[in-house]
Each structure stands twice: as C-alpha cells, then as structure tokens.
C-alpha cells in the first residue's frame, strides 16, 4: 500500500484548492501512477517525476513552438527543486489526464488561450511551477532526514544531491525519490523571494531540445509514423465557405497506392461539446473538403491533383479583386463605426485645437502565417477511442475539437502533443485538428496522417485580416495632438494596437476609436501579435505624420507625448533605441532613420505588457529599391527570466516584422487566394537580414514577466516606413512595401 492510495478524493480537492485562482497546483501525487516500481520514475505531483537515476521529468502544459516555453517551464521548476540542470527533461502534459483527474494542471479551460497554450512566464505559470519544485525539494529533504534520523533543517538540497551538513553524508535525489514521493508535509514551503533566485534571471540555458533538433531527431507532427498508417492529401473549397459539388473517384481509383476518397461535410450533425473550451468552438469549424487516401503521401497527392472536383464557390466569389476589398474597407472608414474606446471629448468635433488637422488613411493586407511545417495531423479513430498526434499550439483546444468532431467520450480521447514546426497563431484555433479527425473518422481503425500541401496551407489560412484605417488628429498651437480619432474596417479585427498604446492611455487627452466588421468570407485568425501587428503600423505611422506636420523631430515628438506618462520605461525604450542607433547623426543621401514604439498586451496601462521601441535605418535608391540596413530594438517586458531566450524572440520578431512589412500580402481573385507558394509569397532569407541589435538597457525589472513573442512585430514596420519618409520625403501608407512605388528624386 503506498501513500498515494491513502489519499482520498477529499484530500486531493484540498490540495488543489490550496492554490486556487484558476490554476491547479497539485503538490502531491494524484491517481494510480504515483509511485514507480523498482527503477521507474516516482511521481511527486502531476508536474514532476524523479527517476532512480536522478532524471527529473517536468510535465509541461505549453506546446513548444520555438519560443522555448518548454525549457522555461523546466527551468522554473529547477529554480526551486535545486536539481542539476542536465538531469531535467520535459514532456507535454496530458490533456486527457487533466480532464480525467479534475483539472490537475488547469482548473477548467481558463481564459482565452488557457493554460495549455504557448506562454510560460506570466505569474499564472511561474507560481505553480515554483511551488511544485519547492514542494518536491522539501519532500526529498524530509526523506533524507528520515533515512539519517536527523532534523530536516540539517539537510541541504543542491545539484540533485542531499547533504547532511554536520556530517557530510550524502544521498542523491534518485536514491530517496520513492520514499520522498510518499512524504506528506505538515506545511507546504513558500517559494523563495525573487531576490534569491539563482537560475531565473541569472542563467540563460538553451532549449532542451536543441541536441535532438540538430540531429534531425525531433518528432514534429509531420514525423508521426504508425503501423498500417494511411496518408491523406487534403483539398478544401478554394473559395472559403464554398461547397463540394461533385468529384469523380473512378478517374483515380487505379492510380498507384490509392485507398479511397473521403469527403468532409460541414453541415453533417456534430455533438455539442459537453464542457467549456479555451476558445470558442466556432473558430474551428470544418470546411467543405475532399481528401485522397493512399499508402504514401506522394501517391495521395498525385491522385488528388488528378481528381476531377467541382466546387460551388458560394457567396465569397463576389469579391472579384483585392482592390475591390480595399476600396470597400476604405469607404467604410468614412462613416462612424462601433465605438471601442472614448476618452475625454474624443467623440467631439475635430475643430477644438488651434493647430493643423492631420488626416491619413492606411491599408494592410491579408497575411499568411507560413510556418515551415505545413499543417498536418494524425488520428486513429474507433467507435470508442480517439488518438490524435498533433502539432497543436493549444493542446486543450485540440482535445476539445477532437472530442466534438469524433463524438467519442472525452475520457477516451488522447491528444499526443508533438513538437511544432512554427505556430505564429495558426495552430491555436484547432480547425486543423477538426479536419484531421473529420477525415480519419471515415476510416475507423486505421491511423490517417492528413497533410496540407504548401499550396493548401497558403490558400486555406486563418489570415491576419486585411484592414483599412482612417486616422485624424487636431493639433494644438505647439503641434501636439489634442484630439485623435481612428476608424478601422476589415474582418476579424479590433483596435488593440491603438488601445494598448500610450496615445489612447492618456497621453492624448481626447481619443475615440471605432471599428467596423465587414462581412467578408475570407477566414482570419490570430497571427503573431493579433491586430497589434496592424494597428501599431497605423498608430506609429500617423504619429510620425503629426510630428512632421508640427515640424518636430519624431523622437522628440514622442518623448513630449510621453512626458507625463507614469511609466518612464516607455521613454527609456525610445531613448535607448535612438541612442544605440546613432539617431540624429548624418546619413548619406537616400538613407534615413525612422522610429516607432508600441506595447503588446498592456492595455494602454503603465507598467504592463511588453514595451518595445525600434529604430530602422534604410536606404532607398532613386529608382525605389529598398534595403533595410539595421534595426535597433529596445525592450522592456518587466522582468526577464532568460535573457538569451528573450533576445532570440526579439531577433526573430524583428525579422518577422521586416518580412510582414516588405513582403507579405495576399491577393484575392474571384474570392480565391491567388498565391500558392513561396515564389509568390517571398520570405526574407539570410542575405536580406539586416543588422539586428537588441538592447536591454531600458528593462525595468518590474514585477511582471510579460510575454515577449508578439511585441517586436509591432514597431518594426512603422519604423521602416518612417525611415523611408526620412530618406525620401515619401510617405508610404500601405504594405507590402515591395508592391509600392518608392522611387524618388
């Protein structure tokens, strides 16, 4: 009889309730898998097992999409567990276990994005993992003290070794793990204060999975291989929302390896999910589709290309061109929209200032995430069980979608989270999960690996929305804005980027923001820095236009706006980026510097979110050929737990921002997305990468550890167009820049 089986249901509930606040903190084991047999790992709590060879395995709820979230969770546990870093391993936590064992990892689905999404450093993540590590450490110490019959206060835990300080006797963690896992502490230890951290904010380990990556051994969704597996090549209605009319299986039946054709019908009845999901299930709806199944993917794909298919394009086909969509969105901005925010007399007339009226309209296009791992997933569906191997960005949402699409009892639905070859928001909603399960359930008993071709990925996105915006400002006699009005239109957007900005947060006294959602069929979704990535471009381009109208240096103008802002680190970020970039120093003709600042997720409040300021230095030839030479970026996420990981996110984010601004933009023809692959949707490569310099001089070391992935995408684009203006006098109000006329002189 082990200690765990003595824990009754009430005992578990008390341990979980002790933490509360939406997150579960099991600090003791739950369920039958608690104590290992000889040689097996012992479970200290749902988060941590320790094996006799000292290996510590941390169950990580966050998928690893490249941001290091998995490593961060392990590092957080190690901070309190005091284990040697090389002993740490990480696995993806089971969403099935979370369901079956009453939310051992997260109390319910949580707020949007939930606990099983890609973030790792907010207080909600740090606290339970620090507590779990501290609890396990104290139980190891207690077990050693019991073995030595000494007071626990005389035992020190460090680098996976327990030492009896007075005598120098030692035991390794693995040697006492079985005994320690059964220890019930009288009182849970308090995690140490931040000032005593030795790993977090001090060390900067690389990702745990780097060694596997460089050997080609990491298992992404694409690499799942199961016995008797079929491959499926998928084609969805080329016009989103269209319907399959007919197809001719006879035309491909005899092609090599072909097994069958499967149809996905969105109107087919589906069960309603019997519990809440992290994101609305409506974000994961099925699209009308046909899939060819074969022994090998290449066979499936060739057969799909040969399959005669007729589609009913539906409503979306009325949008004949990109220009038609853009014109419609710009026209909507001429009328009042839904008011998202009003401050002061923002709704009043734009006639209240003594200075100039500045007005400008901007356009940003649909953009595709273009993760290099194409969408895919593998499912084995039977009448009473589902196994899904998937590169999800939100494994709890994936679990919910698999339950709903299969209709199988959630107790018998297992999502096996794989590594993810890039997320950027595309794999959050779980519509990819739905298509995989929808295909696989038609071939019960056989695992089916469903693969989107690159062309299918590009044309069946959940895109960054196209958006138009009209911004207006009345300046005072000194040239500073008294009233700012913004109207935006598109599908699937909000004005987050402006609402998160200092301008809406109080720096400009009178503000109103309005949006209009247009009924466009093209499917949209979160894309690195949702809506922020667009609206930072609008806001920071426009403020630059105001500065020019006021004849004030763009840096100085922004510092004036921030003069009374209660969070001084905004101004510090600006000054840091500007100083490091050589702001104000002369440049050759045709070159210019531009500056921009933005904040991701702080809601326009001081000391919140991640603040980033960027200076871009560009060169434009008289014929209009653009080169981005250098980007200096200063960041303040509050506190930093792994500086190298933050730096990597900033470097990658700058490139993402450069690419989004210079290259990305989908075109629409007769309701369909035109671009098919990277030859039509170009990507920045090593050769076009500017010098990127990330600066930490403005870090506030504040209480928060704000998320860092999205933030850098905001200021890069506007810094580039502001630099183009400085270099050429030409104001560019639309992206991608590769399609704009930048010629001058």
């Amino acid at each position, binding site marked *: 009889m082990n200690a765990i089986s003595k824990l009754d249901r009430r005992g578990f509930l008390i341990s979980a309730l002790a933490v509360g606040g939406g997150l579960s903190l099991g600090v003791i084991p739950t369920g039958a898998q608690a104590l290992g047999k000889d040689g097996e790992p012992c479970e200290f709590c749902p988060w941590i097992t320790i094996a006799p060879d000292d290996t510590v395995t941390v169950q990580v709820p966050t998928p690893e999409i490249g941001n290091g979230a998995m490593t961060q969770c392990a590092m957080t546990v190690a901070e309190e567990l005091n284990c040697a870093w090389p002993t740490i391993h990480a696995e993806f936590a089971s969403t099935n276990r979370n369901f079956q064992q009453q939310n051992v990892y997260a109390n319910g689905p949580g707020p949007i994005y939930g606990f099983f999404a890609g973030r790792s450093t907010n207080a909600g993540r740090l606290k339970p993992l620090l507590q779990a590590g501290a609890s396990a450490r104290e139980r190891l110490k207690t077990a050693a003290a019991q073995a030595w019959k000494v007071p626990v206060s005389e035992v020190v835990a460090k680098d996976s070794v327990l030492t009896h300080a007075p005598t120098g006797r030692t035991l390794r963690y693995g040697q006492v793990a079985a005994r320690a896992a059964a220890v019930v502490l009288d009182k849970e230890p308090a995690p140490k204060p931040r000032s005593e951290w030795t790993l977090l904010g001090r060390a900067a380990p690389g990702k745990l999975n*780097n060694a596997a990556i460089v050997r080609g051994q990491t298992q992404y969704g694409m690499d799942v*291989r199961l016995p008797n597996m079929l491959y499926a090549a998928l084609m969805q209605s080329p016009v989103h929302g269209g319907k399959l009319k007919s197809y001719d299986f006879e035309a491909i039946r005899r092609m090599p390896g072909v097994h069958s054709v499967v149809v996905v019908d969105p109107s087919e009845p589906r069960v309603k999910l019997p519990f809440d999901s992290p994101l609305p299930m409506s974000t994961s709806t099925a699209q009308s589709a046909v899939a060819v199944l074969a022994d090998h993917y290449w066979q499936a794909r060739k057969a799909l290309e040969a399959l005669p298919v007729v589609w009913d394009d539906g409503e979306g086909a009325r949008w004949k061109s990109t220009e038609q969509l853009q014109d419609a969105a710009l026209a909507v901005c001429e009328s009042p929209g839904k008011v998202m925010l009003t401050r002061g007399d923002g709704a009043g007339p734009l006639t209240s200032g003594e200075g100039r009226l500045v007005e400008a309209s901007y356009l940003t296009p649909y953009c595709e995430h273009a993760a290099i791992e194409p969408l895919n997933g593998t499912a084995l569906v039977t009448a009473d069980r589902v196994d899904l191997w998937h590169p999800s960005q939100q494994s709890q949402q994936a679990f919910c979608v698999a339950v709903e699409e299969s209709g199988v009892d959630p107790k018998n639905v297992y999502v096996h989270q794989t590594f993810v070859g890039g997320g950027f928001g595309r794999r959050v909603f779980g519509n990819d999960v739905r298509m995989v399960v929808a295909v696989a359930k038609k071939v019960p008993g056989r695992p089916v690996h469903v693969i989107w071709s690159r062309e299918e990925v590009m044309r069946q996105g959940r895109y960054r929305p196209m958006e138009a915006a009209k911004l207006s400002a009345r300046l005072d006699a000194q040239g500073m804005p008294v009233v700012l009005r913004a109207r935006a239109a598109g599908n699937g957007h909000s004005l987050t980027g402006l609402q998160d900005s200092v301008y809406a947060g109080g720096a400009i006294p009178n503000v109103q923001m309005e949006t209009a959602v247009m009924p466009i069929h093209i499917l949209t979704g979160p894309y690195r820095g949702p809506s922020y990535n667009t609206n930072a471009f609008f806001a920071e381009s426009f403020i630059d236009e105001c500065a020019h109208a006021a004849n004030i240096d763009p840096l100085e103008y922004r510092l004036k706006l921030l003069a009374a802002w209660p969070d001084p680190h905004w101004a510090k970020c600006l000054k840091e980026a500007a100083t490091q970039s050589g702001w104000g120093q002369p440049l050759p003709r045709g070159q210019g510097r531009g500056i921009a600042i933005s904040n991701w997720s702080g809601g326009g409040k001081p000391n919140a979110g991640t603040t980033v300021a960027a200076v871009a230095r560009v060169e434009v030839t008289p014929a209009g050929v653009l080169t981005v030479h250098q980007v200096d970026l200063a960041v303040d996420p509050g506190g930093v737990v792994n500086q190298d990981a933050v730096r*990597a996110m900033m470097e990658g984010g700058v490139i993402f921002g450069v690419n989004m601004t210079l290259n990305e933009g989908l075109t629409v023809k007769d309701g369909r997305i035109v671009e098919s692959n990277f030859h039509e949707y170009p990507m920045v490569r090593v050769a076009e990468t500017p010098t990127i310099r990330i600066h930490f001089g403005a870090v506030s070391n504040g209480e928060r550890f704000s998320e860092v992935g999205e933030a850098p995408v905001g200021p890069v684009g506007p810094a580039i167009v502001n630099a183009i203006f400085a270099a050429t006098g030409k104001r560019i109000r639309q992206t991608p820049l590769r399609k704009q006329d930048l010629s001058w002189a």
Partner: protein
Amino acid sequence: MSTTITVNGVVHKVDADPSTPLLWVLRDHLGMTGTKYGCGVAQCGACTVQIDGVAARSCQAPLEALAGVKITTIEGLSADGNHPLQTAWVDLNVPQCGYCQAGVLMAASALLKDNPHPTDADIDAAVTNICRCGSYVRIRAGIHAAAKALHAQHKV
C-alpha cells in the same frame, strides 16, 4: 519497380514510382524523417540533403535519377551529433522551432566543405533556406563559429 540508392553509406532497395521525389522516399519509404517537407518547389530548403557532397533540394530529385550517387542526410551528418555546426548550433541556441534547421545544416556543411572560411557574402549565396522563426542572425554566427572550430581542429 525497385530502385537502389545509397543513403548515408547504406544501400537501400526502394519500391516506389521512379518519379517519386527523394524527399518522400526518405520520409515515407525509408522512415528517415529528419529531412523535412516545407514547400515542394525548391524554395524553402527544408528538404536540403547532399548529393555527392553538393547541397540539393530533395523535393526536386526524382528517385530514378539517384542510382549510383551518394546521398547524405541530416541523420548522416555526423556519427554522434558532433559536427562542428551541430555543436555551434547548440552552443549558440540557434534553433527556434527547429523544423528548418536540418536543411540549413546540410546547406551549411556543404558550404564549409568547399569553403572553410566563408565570408558573409558566401553564406548569403549558399544558405538560401527559409527560417520563418527568423534565426538568421544566429545561423550566420553559427557558421562562422563552426568554421573557426574546424580550423582549430585541423591545426591540431
């Protein structure tokens, strides 16, 4: 239809249509999943392998053209993951999601074989892979670090 090919020094008999791209032969017939599918049109470079020591997009190499050549994939880059590029990649924390990196490493190792001291311009020309995470700054640094390490090895 069976074709014989040599991958990482091992001879394999492959039963597949002769037009099947090497990429899918490796992944689906030989179970070597380190080589990745990214675009299928020779744009992204995730499928890069070496054919007779030269970096090549395996999505464009049909099985029928591969008799008698020596194919090297990421699984064969080094015996135990200790190629100087692999070491540099871990030391400099180059990968983010890592999906593209096998292809990048195969392109970079082909470069270093021909050119032990590549300049930035040499790297620009030889490593044309797409990394959506944007690890380019570290890819460049990693190649320079590996070149240095190789130089030091040869001196010993």
